[in-house]
């Protein structure tokens, strides 16, 4: 990575912590993960030493939390007019895109890292497979990255953060639902199993599943990496379009 990217990452990350919004976000994130894990996910009633009830909810939790982080990435630059400043600095556009993306991804990773008490709890209560937990975390970070890249893309589309948020939630909802069991069951009533399988292979649910069971499959990693790559590439195309007018 070049100096320009690192400077942008530093600026963006520092930006999170000068405003109270970041702290509010972290608190909400932790409260919600706790709520889903222990209340909705029946962590204790399951009577097993695993974090299944913790990770299961991540695709849904991130559906709203990640766009909340990503919505301002480019829309704010457009609204403030700093896009003009940023893109006339001696860096390539992709460096700015990657820098802003990486900074927000690191922030999300930090939020995720702050859930460590749940690992301590489960290890204290029982004897979980920590390899499975580690793979769950890897999957969760990748999932957050894919969601973030999509939010990054929608935030380049508009200077209005609310619109960017809604667009992002809609796209992500689609990426969840096309592999969500109740939906695939419904779909298989009038489509052939092959079609259902192809549709489901585009879903984050399908690819997140194995991570929760302790399997880090290269194909799943490639899927998330492709979503990130494609969304960031599209961000670049959108920004080029903006500049051309």
């Amino acid at each position, binding site marked *: 990575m070049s*100096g*320009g990217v690192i*400077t*942008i990452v530093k*600026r963006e990350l*520092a*930006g999170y912590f*000068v*405003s109270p919004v970041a702290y509010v976000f972290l608190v909400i994130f932790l409260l919600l993960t706790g709520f889903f894990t222990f209340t909705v996910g029946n962590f204790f009633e399951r009577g097993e030493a695993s974090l299944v009830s913790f990770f299961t909810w991540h695709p849904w939790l991130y559906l709203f939390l990640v766009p909340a982080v990503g919505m301002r990435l480019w829309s704010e630059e457009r609204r*403030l*007019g*700093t896009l*003009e*400043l940023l*893109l*006339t*600095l*001696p*860096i*390539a556009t992709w460096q700015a895109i990657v820098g802003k993306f990486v900074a927000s991804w690191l922030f999300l990773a930090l939020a995720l890292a702050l859930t460590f008490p749940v690992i301590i709890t489960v290890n204290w209560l029982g004897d979980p497979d920590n390899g499975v937990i580690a793979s769950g975390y890897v999957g969760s970070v990748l999932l957050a990255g894919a969601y973030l890249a999509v939010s990054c893309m929608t935030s380049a589309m508009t200077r209005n953060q609310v619109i960017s948020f809604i667009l992002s939630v809609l796209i992500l909802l689609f990426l969840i639902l096309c592999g969500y069991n109740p939906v695939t069951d419904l779909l298989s009533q009038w489509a052939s199993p092959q079609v259902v399988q192809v549709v489901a292979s585009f879903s984050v649910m399908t690819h997140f599943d194995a991570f929760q069971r302790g399997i880090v499959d290269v194909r799943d990693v490639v899927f998330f990496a492709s979503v990130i790559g494609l969304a960031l590439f599209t961000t670049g195309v959108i920004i080029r379009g903006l*500049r*051309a*007018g």
Partner: protein
Amino acid sequence: MIKVENLIKNFGPKIAVNDVSFSVERGEVLGFLGPNGAGKSTTMRMVTGFIPPTAGRISVGGHDILTNPIPAKRLIGYLPENAPSYADMTVQGFLRFTAEMRGITGDARKRAVNRAVELCMLENVLYQTIDTLSKGYRHRTCLAQSIIHDPDILIMDEPTDGLDPNQKHEVRNLIKRMGTNKAVIFSTHILEEVDAACSRVIIIDRGRIVANGTPDELRRRSHLAGAVSVVVSGVTAAELSEALSSIDLVVRVDTLSETPQQSVVRAHPDSPDQKPALVRAVMELVSQRHWQLEDLRTEEGHFDEVFRSITLPDTIKEARQ
């Protein structure tokens, strides 16, 4: 240092910049004038590499801005219109960031920030968050950002917009000083600024260059240039006008005011060069007739008048259509 050839920019069906060519060398300060929407900002945005042109070539320090943007952008310091900056950063944080983005780190960064802060007089607000600054200070912060790397080329879109008269004066001096060893382009709506800081002026109207020359050359286009106004007491304006009209050099005489005590009349020569001759002739006439001369003023010509005469007729015609 900057060479622009046949630049064209269309936004959909709208032609914002239409076949603009110019060049700026080191040691020159080029002023961009033109009515609102003329295409000044659009031209600057293309030169700085923010937006791609529809057609035409731009070379900055020998680098083509489209095929080789990064070395070109390194040479440029840019103050965009409305002076955008990151509202949540402090002035110091923002300047450090822009210095680092330009590859200035460590001690060099400290020196660069100090120098820019000093030149733009930001000492008092160094640790203040940008969104709590007044408009003028925000503007100066963005100005500081544009000179942080002591660039060879400085491009500024309305650099004195929103500044108080003292600051306007300082910034003009800054531009002038920078112009001695850099290539500078700046746009403005303040016509005196052109006189104060520019070595050359381009007037743009609806995407086209309609005038290009030194401030003096442009001023001489004014119909006032070279005119002589006299204030004489004890004579009627009609008598005074008639006498002045009889001078060979004079092509037109305007009565400016008349009271029972005195008359004010302005005589226009054929060309601004004839001003000294006209002054001598007027003085001679006055002494011949034993009139009492109260005042005599010569006109250099007014920029605003030239600006209006070049850009106004068409604009009005268009509005009426």
